[in-house]
């Protein structure tokens, strides 16, 4: 039986080292091609006319003038008169023309009339006394739960309890499978009882039932310390630098080639097949590079279907439409808001005893995700309730670690406030509660000690409120986080050619995470050859399927399938080479670009010579993940991380600056220290950005986004980030767990740790992110008022 397990640390020429990404040269030289760069002869520009109202019904559409304009090649109505529109920016009519300017002129010539309907865009605290929602799960509600990655058990429990108000068909199940919905959830849907939706469902508020564990009232009344606070995070936008979109081109009316900016190369065709009425097998999906996804690019969207329809209407000519920046802000996804009023209590030893939260938030028309509260800590006595608010704005999509950053801000903020009330160092407070911190408690303990050292926490931490004179107040804050990250389903074909070259085909994608690099590392490490010998062909749905890149599932999936394929290919090669070396196959090893007898370097063949023994036909094997026939499990689930922030706050201007952040992160076996560390650095920077600057602002009057651009929707720049330090947990206790994904976890804690550091600096809690000067000054003023 072949040994598939990850090699011993002593025999890893490449695995676990610090290696530059293989696609680095093509990216830094500008040669890397993205969907947006697809530019064939005769390309037509696609553009979409969008609804200017947040809630309306289309009464009429007149495209006559646009169709007659020179240079306009196709006009396709997306939503017909009579359709109710639920958010500003929704797609109405698509146009393809010889260039973008002509397409834009054509949009201006289209006349659409609307009956404007009342809209609702506020995610302020819901009124009291809303009845809890006990009705069936609607189609939108289900989609919302899936997009927000609500745990499968929770989804199934809800479906079983209340039934569903929609009737999925076989094709819907297929499409769900393509989107990565778990088979157990699909099975629950199949068994669910149909319950018609209640007719009087006009309130924007959906309140879940009160969930109670233990005896919270009793625990609060006998607690040594209780604090109450309000915490929250507004809606923010993914801001992928390459906007969403695709280019489509028909060959006849039954074969379609789609270049699309996606996180889900293998899953797109199934989603396009039905609306375009073409077999999924006739759709070739291609993508070499993607300019950011962050959770927002799993689907073939309505605009992508429109692009394909425009191409068809234009006689099959290639049409490309990538969203403009305003549309990207209005319709291409956001992270749901989450706010909560929290009451939290501890006993005299600083052990958490009770939690009470009333949370609310919006994720667009479908409502909002439920943050997992309290985060990390299994507080023994709990009462919690969440209200999802339906608002007239484009729907939420998964945003790195869905619901976790919000839950961390709310929970870690409340814990920090409680520790402050007890005059305790939060590092000490958290250490005392690690026994209720779930399965990764020991990891947290080790990470907290390392982070303490890196930050100089014990040396520099002070009680709440920096007492040094002057305007600049400095403070420290910390947070921690958890994530699953088990590898997804992944197939690959690995070929060793008789000339010694190696080729891998896999229907995956690299979002800039380093997927391409770690696949290459694993293959080269296993075969004992330089990485330059390995060619990775990917970004094509005609290659063996690999899952969508979401939920930190890619690293574990693609490395596991590659490892199994490389081990099998290597062992088959050994069988061919063994006679020439007068040895048994199991006595051979592949190292230093040779195949040789273990312990006898004289009986050796150069890699190329060894491969010549394969014969005339190349040797191809299929690697899979998971693969119960080929144990052990090479991936795992469950990581922990700790972050600390050091900030300075100017209490006259309210400006917050991050001086330093440290991140200590576990992700099982680290394949490439360099790209893994980059993920964590990137997460810290994205975290600083949403902690201090980012907010999607909706105008209550017009219902439109007020800052759908990069001047007024601020992202962190290079001058905003302070000193950053990253430590990856490696070695014993981590390595042997296998490869676990890393994209989500480190982005969870920056908001919470920075918010806590600001509270530690200025002595009061700024309740809501982003921690903008106005919010900081308001919190200081409120505190002054309370004391004066």
């Amino acid at each position, binding site marked *: 039986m072949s040994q598939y397990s990850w090699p011993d640390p002593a025999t890893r020429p490449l695995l676990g080292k610090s290696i530059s990404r293989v696609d*680095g040269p093509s990216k830094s030289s500008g040669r890397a091609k993205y969907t947006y760069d697809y*530019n064939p002869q005769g390309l037509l520009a696609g553009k979409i006319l969008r609804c200017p109202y947040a809630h309306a019904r289309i009464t009429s559409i007149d495209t006559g003038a646009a169709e007659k304009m020179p240079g306009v090649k196709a006009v396709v109505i997306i939503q017909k008169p009579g359709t109710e529109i639920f958010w500003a920016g929704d797609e109405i009519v698509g146009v393809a023309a010889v260039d973008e300017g002509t397409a834009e002129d054509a949009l201006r010539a289209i006349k659409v009339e609307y009956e404007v309907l009342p809209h609702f865009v506020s995610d302020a605290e819901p009124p009291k006394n809303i009845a809890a929602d006990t009705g069936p799960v609607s189609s939108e509600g289900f989609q919302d739960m899936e997009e927000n990655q609500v745990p499968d058990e929770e989804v199934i429990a809800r479906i079983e309890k209340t039934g569903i108000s929609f009737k999925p068909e076989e094709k819907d199940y297929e499409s769900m499978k393509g989107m990565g919905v778990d088979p157990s959830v699909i099975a629950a849907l199949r068994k669910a009882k149909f319950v018609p939706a209640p007719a009087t469902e006009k309130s924007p508020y959906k309140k879940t039932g009160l969930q109670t564990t233990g005896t919270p009232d009793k625990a609060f009344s006998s607690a040594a310390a209780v604090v109450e606070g309000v915490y929250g995070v507004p809606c923010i936008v993914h801001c992928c630098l390459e906007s969403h979109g695709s280019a489509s081109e028909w060959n006849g009316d039954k074969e379609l080639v789609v270049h699309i900016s996606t996180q889900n190369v293998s899953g797109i065709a199934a989603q396009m097949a039905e609306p375009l009425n073409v077999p999924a097998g006739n759709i070739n999906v291609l993508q070499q*590079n993607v300019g950011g996804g962050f959770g927002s690019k799993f689907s073939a969207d309505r605009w992508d279907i429109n692009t394909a329809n425009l191409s068809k209407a234009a006689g099959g000519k290639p049409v490309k439409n990538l969203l403009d920046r305003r549309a990207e802000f209005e319709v291409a996804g956001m992270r749901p808001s989450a706010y909560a009023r929290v009451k939290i209590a501890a006993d005299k030893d600083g052990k958490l005893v009770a939690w009470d939260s009333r949370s609310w938030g919006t994720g667009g028309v479908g409502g909002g995700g439920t943050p997992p509260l309290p985060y990390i800590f299994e507080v023994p006595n709990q009462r919690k309730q969440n209200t999802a608010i339906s608002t007239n704005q484009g729907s939420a999509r998964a945003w790195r670690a869905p619901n976790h950053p919000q839950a961390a801000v709310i929970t870690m903020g409340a814990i920090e406030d409680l520790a402050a009330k007890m005059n305790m160092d939060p590092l000490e407070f958290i250490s005392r509660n690690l026994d209720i911190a779930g399965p990764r408690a020991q990891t947290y303990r080790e990470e907290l000690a390392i982070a303490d050292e890196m930050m100089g926490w014990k040396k520099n931490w002070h009680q709440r409120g920096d007492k040094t004179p002057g305007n600049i107040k400095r403070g420290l804050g910390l947070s921690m986080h958890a994530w699953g990250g088990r590898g997804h389903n992944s197939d690959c074909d690995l070929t060793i050619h008789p000339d010694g070259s190696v080729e891998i085909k896999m229907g995956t994608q690299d979002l800039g995470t380093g997927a391409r690099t770690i696949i290459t590392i694993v293959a080269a490490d296993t075969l004992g050859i330089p990485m330059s010998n390995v060619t990775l062909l990917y970004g094509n749905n005609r290659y063996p399927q690999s899952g969508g890149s979401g939920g930190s599932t890619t690293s574990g999936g693609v490395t596991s399938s590659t490892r199994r394929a490389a081990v099998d290919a290597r062992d088959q090669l050994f069988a061919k080479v063994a006679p020439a070396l007068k040895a048994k196959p199991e006595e051979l090893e592949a190292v230093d670009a040779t195949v040789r007898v273990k312990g006898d370097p004289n009986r050796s063949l150069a890699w190329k010579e060894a491969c010549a023994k394969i014969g005339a036909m190349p040797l191809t094997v299929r690697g899979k993940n998971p693969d119960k026939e080929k144990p052990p499990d090479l991936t795992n689930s469950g990581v922990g991380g700790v972050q600390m922030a050091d900030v300075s706050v100017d209490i006259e201007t309210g400006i917050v600056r991050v001086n330093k952040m440290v991140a200590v992160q576990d992700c099982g076996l680290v394949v490439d220290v360099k790209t893994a560390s*980059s993920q964590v650095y990137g997460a810290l920077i*994205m975290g600083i950005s949403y902690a201090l600057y980012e907010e999607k602002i909706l105008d209550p009057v017009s219902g439109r986004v007020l800052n759908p651009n*990069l001047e007024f929707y601020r992202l*962190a720049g290079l001058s905003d980030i302070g000193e950053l330090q990253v430590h990856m947990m490696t070695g014993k206790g981590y390595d042997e767990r296998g490869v676990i994904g890393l994209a989500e976890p480190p982005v969870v804690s920056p908001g919470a740790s920075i918010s806590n550091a600001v509270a530690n600096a200025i002595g009061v809690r700024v309740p809501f992110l982003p921690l903008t000067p106005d919010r900081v000054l308001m919190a200081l003023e409120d505190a002054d008022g309370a004391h004066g």
Partner: protein
Amino acid sequence: MKDDDARKPEAASGVSRRDFMKISAVTAAVPLVLGSKVVEAAGEDVTVHGPGKVPVALNVNGKKLSADLEPRVTLLDALREQFDLTGAKRVCDRGACGACTVLLDGKPVYACSVLAIDAQGAKITTIEALAEGDALSPVMQAFVAHDAQQCGFCTPGFVVAATHFLQQHPKPSAEEIRHGLSGNYCRCGTYDGIRAVAMAHAGGKQP
């Protein structure tokens, strides 16, 4: 400013509403491609381009490139769509993010905010010309070595900006780096690597 007729600013501020109508009427009747026209507006001769296509000649990466373009076409769109120089990216399309940075007479500009017609006569350098044949420039090599890139969409703009910045500041201080490389946004969060590129340069380290 160079003494080049094509780049002289037009005295367009004197065009009255009625004159403008007159100009529009003239151009509506003309063929698709047309050179500029001189019309009398508010007592002065005014050169008017478009709105139809006009011939535009650009000096890009040392080559003379020409195309018939509407005057509203930006330098960025001309480079990408006409000449297939796709290294510069359109992200914000309004001069905020730097993903479209190119050099105009040696100075970094946001190509989304320059009209192609206005870039005539200038020496335009794009990311494609910064690589030395197939070999990477030292700054590009440093971006690889310090992993100053993830999805890579902002990277070409950043490399152009960093190349110019490091030419101007061969030994930049931390403060100069903070200030000098703040004109580009990255969403994946590669600033730490980009900062390391500049700091290594300051320390005289070659990648």
